[in-house]
């Protein structure tokens, strides 16, 4: 192939980019090796080298990110990454979202946070810097390799390492356009998926990735502890990090839920999707680790578990990465990335983080100190440990079910014909186990608050414990009754969980109240555990009690075979301006408007109480986003009205076809068959229309009684904006169809503007009818200037004449006149003739033809009385006599039948298909879960401030 000299490419950026990516990889390896040798040999040189390499690495990571942002902002479409994620229309506020939409960008985001966290640890310069950062550097090296994009090996043994964000578009795709040297002039970017164009895409990924990346810190501390055989000293510095990580990761997961709920049309905040599950599992393990860590620090017990959980947490983050990025999840997840050829590398990463740490844990197992004395059944540590085990148990169940596609793959290796199994109904499958886990966790986290570490005198504490617990159970029982009334849960399991949650909230709040007297240091744990109880109540109410309100009570059951299950029927059809009752709400689709690619619908909800009295009203604006060609809906964004005790969630499930596809709409309009009718003014006309009824395979004749009441030469139409010089005709029509009493008024309009015709048809959606005026209407009704014969008369002021039984009185001159048809220009010498016309029927009309001299040329502007058929001009002013020459023409109103195009095959376009769900108590979920994360972060702050005091 000939070498083409492409025009306009910025190849320097790619070359620089490849170089820096290579630098991140090499510097991380150098850093890992240097830190390793420093740990081994404790020679200062290695430390300095390790540090400088890590700093170099971090700077290189920041530079790669900066460079990608640069080429994205500059829209260098010659780079595949830019072309895929950016487009000319992409608003700048989504540039971050576009950056981490792709795999390479999200790897870089991960590396970015690792680098930041690593630099913070580096800046502390304590004994753990070298061992922890050696582990960091290894992880960074593996992550860097994912974006290397280099081939290693020889000939047939060469493998591609990583996928570079600096690949050229023309190297990744084969398209005829690359045969042109100036192809860059011709292409525009693909752009960010419209579904992802919202602020959640800007804030959710960085938070979640900070969460993922921060699990590396407790992992690295634990691994470093095993490595250097120091099982004590890492515990203290690692603890605030673990709390930080759990708090941030939790917030990240919650943001994902909030995004799904608020901006996507899933109709919920949690769907047990594999990707959601696999971000939850590391979090659960981390929480288990934090609890055993607490035991270790208080009693010295459970250190092995702490090691195990911290190592497992990060390993599971890598496992989660493997699942979502290797393509193995296939169709089981909405989140999964497509395959990128990184499977082998990801598997290698997975191997490293599972094999090395746990092998080391086994090797050092004997050296890990364990107290001789077993914990007492009455001690706090025993029950906290139980809680951690339950969390671990929960994780095993979730991860096990989620890994089903992996088990399938493995089995298929040995048995290629194996089809693979799937979870038939995932949500109930997960719920039925997790409900019991939640119950255990709540009871443990509440009762254990009243136990003591290293209990040696249980006899003394027992009474206090029993009294407290008794009081809490009693209060919970009192609270249970109204809660039961509110939620009306039928299954006893759910009621038991509800009761336990109430107990959890009460017991933990009681500790919080006593905090203000005793200043217990457990305040953060109490906040988290209260939050957990509230969250479970929120899940019970919003999850189990969510109510689909968009089902139509009037739908005739049994009309359609098999349509018995009402719960499945989630959508309702709502016509514009036809209020529809759904449960206690009356919904009216009032209007819609289009802004760029987004169409928003205004829905007015009026809520009624049981006595059918109006109690509240609000507007909701769900939107749909069109794709670039306006031929399909790219995304449907819900709208939610929030009350303190419930949410009303709506989203547009479907639209008329002609509203979704503008291409189709145009086709339909162009191919619409019209009946040409000729209807005389004020004469009753009947149009018989034969219509085909599709589902009954018959025809029916419908009669339309049409009366034209008026011909309007200054018509109005919702879409018509009159301009000067327009010739416009509107026909006022009054119609009744034989099967209905309803009178329909319509006014189609046609306009002639500068030799172009503009038609403003009328759509009568109730009748699927469209009416337009054909061009012929002008000839039928309009008198053109060429057809007129003017007669000239000279009139003095206050003189009059009679023409065709109309009296015309010249009432005098008007200097600097302004009339509808005349706009003064600078330099005009203009004078108007003020004329009063009295018709034979006694009606008066005042008109003003204008005579003017513009740039030395005499001109005149005509005046017209369409109702009388009179045309008047003022072509000359006699300066001697001061008389005006008035030209008069008469054209009687044409009385031709009026041509009307009438079609009854127009598709209705004035409805939406709506899904509306009420989520009671959802704020308990958000509030409770936020409290959990707040508690974790507060715990971190308390630990950090205590450390400073020490």
């Amino acid at each position, binding site marked *: 192939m000939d070498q083409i000299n492409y025009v306009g490419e910025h190849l320097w950026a790619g070359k620089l980019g490849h170089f820096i990516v290579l630098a991140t990889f090499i510097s991380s390896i150098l850093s890992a090796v240097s830190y390793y040798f420093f740990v081994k040999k404790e020679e200062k040189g290695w430390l300095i080298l390790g540090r400088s390499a890590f700093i170099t690495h971090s700077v290189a990571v920041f530079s790669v990110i900066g460079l990608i942002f640069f080429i994205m902002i500059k829209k260098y479409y010659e780079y595949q990454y830019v072309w*895929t994620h950016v*487009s000319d229309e992409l608003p700048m506020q989504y540039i971050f979202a576009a950056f981490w939409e792709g795999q390479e960008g999200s790897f870089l985001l991960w590396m970015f946070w690792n680098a930041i966290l690593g630099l913070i640890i580096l800046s502390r310069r304590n004994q753990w810097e070298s061992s922890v950062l050696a582990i960091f550097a290894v992880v960074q090296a593996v992550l860097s390799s994912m974006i290397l994009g280099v081939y290693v090996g020889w000939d047939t043994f060469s493998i591609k390492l990583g996928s570079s964000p600096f690949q050229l578009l023309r190297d990744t*795709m084969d*398209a005829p*356009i690359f045969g042109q040297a100036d192809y860059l*002039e*011709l*292409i*525009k*970017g*693909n752009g960010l*998926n419209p579904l992802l164009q919202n602020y959640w895409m800007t804030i959710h990924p960085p938070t979640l990735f900070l969460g993922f990346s921060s699990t590396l810190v407790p992992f690295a501390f634990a691994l470093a502890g095993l490595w250097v055989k120091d099982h004590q000293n890492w515990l203290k510095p690692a603890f605030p990090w673990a709390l930080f990580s759990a708090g941030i990761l939790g917030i990240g997961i919650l943001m994902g839920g909030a995004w799904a709920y608020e901006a996507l049309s899933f109709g919920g905040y949690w769907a047990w999707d594999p990707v959601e599950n696999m971000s939850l599992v590391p979090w659960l393990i981390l929480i288990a680790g934090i609890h055993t860590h607490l035991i270790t620090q208080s009693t010295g*017990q459970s250190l092995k578990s702490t090691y195990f959980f911290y190592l497992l947490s990060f390993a599971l983050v890598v496992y989660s990465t493997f699942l979502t990025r290797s393509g193995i999840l296939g*169709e089981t997840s909405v989140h999964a990335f*497509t395959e990128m050829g990184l499977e082998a590398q990801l598997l290698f990463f997975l191997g490293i983080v599972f094999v090395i740490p746990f092998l080391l844990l086994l090797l050092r197992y004997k050296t890990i100190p*364990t107290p001789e004395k*077993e914990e007492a059944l009455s001690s706090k540590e*025993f029950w906290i440990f*139980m809680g951690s*085990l*339950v969390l*671990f*148990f929960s994780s*095993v*169940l979730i991860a*096990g*079910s989620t890994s*089903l596609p992996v088990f399938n793959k493995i089995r298929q290796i040995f048995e290629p014909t194996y*089809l*693979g*199994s*799937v*979870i*038939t*109904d995932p949500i*109930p*499958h997960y719920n039925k*186990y997790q409900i019991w886990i939640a119950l255990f966790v709540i009871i443990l986290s509440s009762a254990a608050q009243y136990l003591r570490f290293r209990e040696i005198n249980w006899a003394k504490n027992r009474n206090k414990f029993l009294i407290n617990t008794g009081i809490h159970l009693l209060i919970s029982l009192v609270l249970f009754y109204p809660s039961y009334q509110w939620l009306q849960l039928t299954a006893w399991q759910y009621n038991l969980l509800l009761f336990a949650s109430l107990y959890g909230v009460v017991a933990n709040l009681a500790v919080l109240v006593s905090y203000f007297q005793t200043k217990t240091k457990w305040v953060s744990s109490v906040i988290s555990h209260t939050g957990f109880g509230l969250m479970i109540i929120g899940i019970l109410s919003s999850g189990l009690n969510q109510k689909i309100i968009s089902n139509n009570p009037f*739908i005739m059951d049994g009309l*359609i075979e*098999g*349509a018995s*299950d009402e719960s*499945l*029927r*989630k*959508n*309702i*059809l709502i016509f514009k301006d036809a209020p529809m009752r759904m449960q206690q709400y009356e919904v009216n689709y009032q209007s819609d408007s289009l802004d760029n690619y987004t169409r928003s619908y205004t829905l007015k909800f009026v809520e009624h109480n049981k006595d059918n009295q109006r109690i509240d009203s609000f507007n909701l604006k769900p939107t749909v986003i069109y794709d*670039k060609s306006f031929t*399909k*809906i790219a995304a*449907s964004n819900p709208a939610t009205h929030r009350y303190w005790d419930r949410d009303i969630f709506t989203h547009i*499930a*479907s639209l*008329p076809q002609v509203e979704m596809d503008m291409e189709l709409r145009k086709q339909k309009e162009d191919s619409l068959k019209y009946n040409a009718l000729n209807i005389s003014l004020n004469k009753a006309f009947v149009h018989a229309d034969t219509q085909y009824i599709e*589902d009954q395979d018959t025809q029916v004749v419908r009669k339309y009684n049409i009366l034209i009441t008026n011909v309007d030469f200054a018509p109005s139409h919702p879409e018509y904006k009159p301009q000067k010089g327009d010739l416009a005709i509107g026909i006022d029509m009054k119609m009744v169809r034989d099967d209905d009493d309803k009178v329909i008024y319509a006014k189609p309009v046609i306009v002639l503007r500068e030799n172009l015709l503009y038609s403003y048809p009328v759509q009568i959606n109730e009748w699927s009818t469209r009416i337009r005026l054909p061009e012929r209407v002008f000839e039928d009704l309009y008198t053109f200037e060429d057809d007129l014969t003017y007669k000239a008369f000279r009139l003095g002021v206050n003189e009059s004449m009679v023409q065709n039984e109309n009296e015309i009185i010249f009432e005098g001159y008007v200097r600097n006149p302004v009339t509808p048809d005349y706009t003064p220009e600078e330099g005009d010498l203009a004078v108007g003739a003020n004329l009063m016309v009295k018709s034979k029927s006694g009606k008066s009309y005042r008109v003003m033809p204008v005579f003017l001299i513009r740039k030395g040329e005499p001109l005149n502007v005509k005046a017209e009385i369409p109702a009388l058929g009179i045309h008047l001009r003022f072509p000359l002013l006699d300066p001697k006599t001061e008389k005006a020459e008035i030209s008069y023409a008469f054209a009687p109103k044409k009385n031709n039948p009026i041509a009307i195009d009438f079609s009854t095959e127009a598709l209705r376009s004035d*409805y939406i*298909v709506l*899904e509306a769900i009420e989520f009671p108590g959802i704020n308990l979920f958000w509030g409770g879960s936020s409290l959990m994360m707040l508690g974790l972060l507060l715990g971190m702050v308390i630990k950090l401030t205590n450390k400073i005091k020490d």
Partner: protein
Amino acid sequence: MKRMYILAMVLIGVSIFLLFNAAEDLSTYATFSEAINNESTVKIAGNLSKDKKMDYNPEKDPNYFSFFIKDSKGIEKKVILFAAKPQDFELSEQIVVTGQMKGEVFYASDLLMKCPSKYKDEEIYIKSEKRS
């Protein structure tokens, strides 16, 4: 510490038991001929028959969508889903329906589509103003 080990063992045992017990929640992808002889809910993976009529007319019923799919054995059946027609339905390469066969019709309670990936089906957008 002994007590802990016992507890941990018990929990791990229970979790393994539960996971195996969860087999009833699992199903393999069935074919239509298997579904006909089966009362229970099954999952069927198939390809959309693009030549057969797809019916979604919200004016008549916004919760009724019917179409035809061909399963892995090449058997074609009508599927009814009581929901709105999903966006991009025509573009789907593979469709997974969950539901039951009643007579000659498969009643789906859930539908999953596998759409061609954004990257596979790439086409270069040409700037419209430059083309003319």
